[in-house]
C-alpha cells in the first residue's frame, strides 16, 4: 500500500518551540519531505542558524551543525569541502543571512559553493523579541523602530535574493512564500529543485521563503498570513531570479 500521508522520516516527531501561526514548521516539513523524496536522509548535513530556528538541529533528523550568527554558509563550506559527496544545507533567517551574515552568504554564493540555502524572511528579528531587521518594511513598527521604520535613518528593506542573483556563482535563486496551500506547493517545488541541483553538482542554490511572525508583528495568525500577502509581496515579489537550467 502506498503511504500518502504521515510524518516525514527526516523530521523528528516532536513538538517545536515555534509560536502559534509561525510558518517555520511548514518550511521544516517541506525540507524534510524533499530530503525523504530524494532519499538523502543519511547523506545530509544541515547547518542551523542563530535566531528562531536555532533549535532546528533538534527537529531535523539528519546530522546537524549549529553555527554562530550569520556564519552558516562558512560552516557549511567547511563541511562540504570535507564531504563533497554529501548534501549540505543551511537554514537561516533574515537577521542571520541579510544582516550579520551578508559577507558569508555573498561569498558562498559567489564561489558557487555546492550547497543549498533556505532563507526565511519574516521581516523581523523573532528570537530576540521583535527588533527591526534589514528586511523590515518601510513604516513597520518593531521594538527598535517604535515609530515605524524610517528609510532616511535605517535604509531600505534589503532584497538579498535579487542581490545574489546578479552574481555569476549561483545556479538557482528563487523567492517563494507559504501563505496559502498553492504557494506552499510551489515553495516545495523550488526547495526540491535547490536540493536536486546540489546533488547534480550544479552549484549554489538559494530559496528565500517569505514567512510569518504573528507574535512579533502583534497580530493573529490568520491576519499574519494576510499581512504577508498584502504587505510583503509588493516589496518581495515571488519569482525565480536565476536558474542556470533555463539558460541551458
Amino acid at each position, binding site marked *: 500500500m502506498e503511504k500518502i500521508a504521515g510524518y516525514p522520516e527526516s523530521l523528528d516527531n516532536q513538538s517545536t518551540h515555534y509560536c502559534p501561526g509561525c510558518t517555520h514548521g511548514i518550511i521544516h516539513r517541506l525540507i524534510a519531505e524533499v530530503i525523504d523524496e530524494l532519499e538523502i*536522509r*543519511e*547523506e*545530509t*548535513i544541515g*547547518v542551523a542558524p542563530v535566531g528562531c530556528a*536555532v*533549535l532546528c*538541529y*533538534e527537529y*531535523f*533528523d*539528519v*546530522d*546537524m*551543525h*549549529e*553555527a*554562530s550568527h550569520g*556564519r552558516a554558509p*562558512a*560552516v*557549511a*563550506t*567547511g*563541511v*562540504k*569541502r*570535507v*564531504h563533497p559527496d*554529501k548534501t549540505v544545507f543551511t537554514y537561516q533567517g533574515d537577521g542571520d543571512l541579510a544582516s550579520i551574515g551578508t*559577507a*558569508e552568504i*555573498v*561569498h558562498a554564493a559567489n564561489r558557487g559553493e555546492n550547497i543549498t540555502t533556505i532563507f526565511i524572511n519574516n521581516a523581523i528579528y523573532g528570537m530576540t523579541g521583535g527588533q527591526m531587521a534589514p528586511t523590515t518594511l518601510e513604516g513597520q513598527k518593531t521594538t527598535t523602530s517604535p515609530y515605524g521604520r524610517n528609510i532616511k535613518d535605517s535604509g531600505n528593506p534589503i532584497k538579498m535574493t535579487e542581490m545574489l542573483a546578479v552574481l555569476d556563482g549561483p545556479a538557482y535563486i528563487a523567492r517563494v512564500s507559504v501563505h496559502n496551500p498553492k504557494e506552499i506547493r510551489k515553495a516545495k517545488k523550488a526547495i526540491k529543485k535547490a536540493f536536486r541541483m546540489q546533488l547534480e553538482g550544479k552549484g549554489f542554490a538559494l530559496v528565500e521563503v517569505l514567512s510569518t511572525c504573528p507574535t512579533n508583528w502583534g497580530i493573529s495568525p490568520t491576519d499574519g498570513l494576510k499581512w504577508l500577502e498584502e504587505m510583503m509581496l509588493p516589496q518581495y515579489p515571488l519569482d525565480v531570479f536565476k536558474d542556470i537550467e533555463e539558460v541551458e
Partner: protein
Amino acid sequence: MSEKKLMKGNEVVGEAAIRAGCRYFFGYPITPQNDIPAYMSRRLPEVDGVFLQAESEVAASNMVYGAAGAGARVLTSSSSPGISLKAEGISYIAGAELPAVIVNIMRSGPGLGGIQPSQADYFQATKGMAHGDFRLLVLAPSTVQELADLTYLAFDLADKYRNPVMVLGDGMLGQMMEPVEFKEMRDLDELPKKEWATDGAKGREKNVINSLGLVAENLEKHNLKLKAKYDQMREEEVRYDDYKMDDAELAIVAYGTTARIATSAIDRARKEGYKVGLIRPITLFPYPENRIAEAADQVDEFLAVEMSTGQMVEDVKLAVNGKKPVDFYGRTGGVVPSTDEIYDKIVAMRGDK
C-alpha cells in the same frame, strides 16, 4: 625522519601540518604569516587537500568549525588582529569540543599595530581568547625545528582533548630560515576515528555539533567537563626547558624567540661569573607553574623577559607566590630586546651580589 632542509618558519608550519595529516586550510591574508597560506595553496593540491582563501578571518574560523565538525584535521593561521576576528569561531570550536589547530604568528598591537615581531597576544592566547569559560592548549616554539615538531604535535593533542590547540610564534620565528627535519607523513587511515562527526547519519543516530546550552545546570555540567580536560592537560601536557639552571641564583623566564635572546645574554653573563639560568615554558597553557614554584626554593630572584609591557610575568608571579622577587624586562610595539639589554638588566639585578 628525512634529511635536513633549510626552510622559512612559516613554510615549515605548512609542511609539518600536512605531515601530521592535515588536508584542509582556511585562511585570510595578513602579515607576517602570509607564507603559510601561500605554502598551503601550493602544497595541499599535491596531496588531494583543500586550500580555501576565505572572505574574512571570521569566515575562515567558521569554515574551520565546519570542517572540524565534519571530522577533518584542519588548520588556520593568522597574525594578531586576524586572531581577534577568529576568536568567535574558536570559542564555538572549544564549546562544541572540536579538534582544530590555530597558528598565531604574532605582530605588534593594539589595534592595527605594526608588522614587527611581538609577544603581546599572551593574554589573548592563554586567558581570554573569546567569550565563555574555555582554554586553548598553547604551544610556544622558539626555533624553526621546534615550530615543525610542535605543529605536528598540535594535531595529536587537538584530537586527544577534542579541543583547539594554538601554536604561538612571532613574526621573527615565522620569517627566519633554519635547518629543519620533518617527521614522517602520517597515514590518513590510521588517524583517530571520529564517531561524533557530521558525515551523514548512515545506519546510526544523527550527530549534532553544537555549543548551545539553554539549561543552566546542563551547561554548567558541560563546562565542568571542559574544565576536567583542562585539568588533565595540567597533569599531562606541561612542557618546558631548563638552561643552566643547576646552580642559578637568577632565573630568567622567557618563551619563544625572546628565550633565545635571553640564552645569549645568559652565556655572556655566565662568562662574567653571574649565576643565571633560564626556564623556558614550551606550553603556555598549561603553564609550567610547578617548575617555577620549585625554582623559587632555589634562586634568589626571577626575571621575566617578553616582547610586551608584561603579560606572562603575571603567571610567573602566581607560580612564585611571593616567595621571591619577580622583575620584568620587556620591549614592545615590535621592538626586539637585544642581548645587551638583557645582559645589562642581569648586571643591574645581580651586580652587587
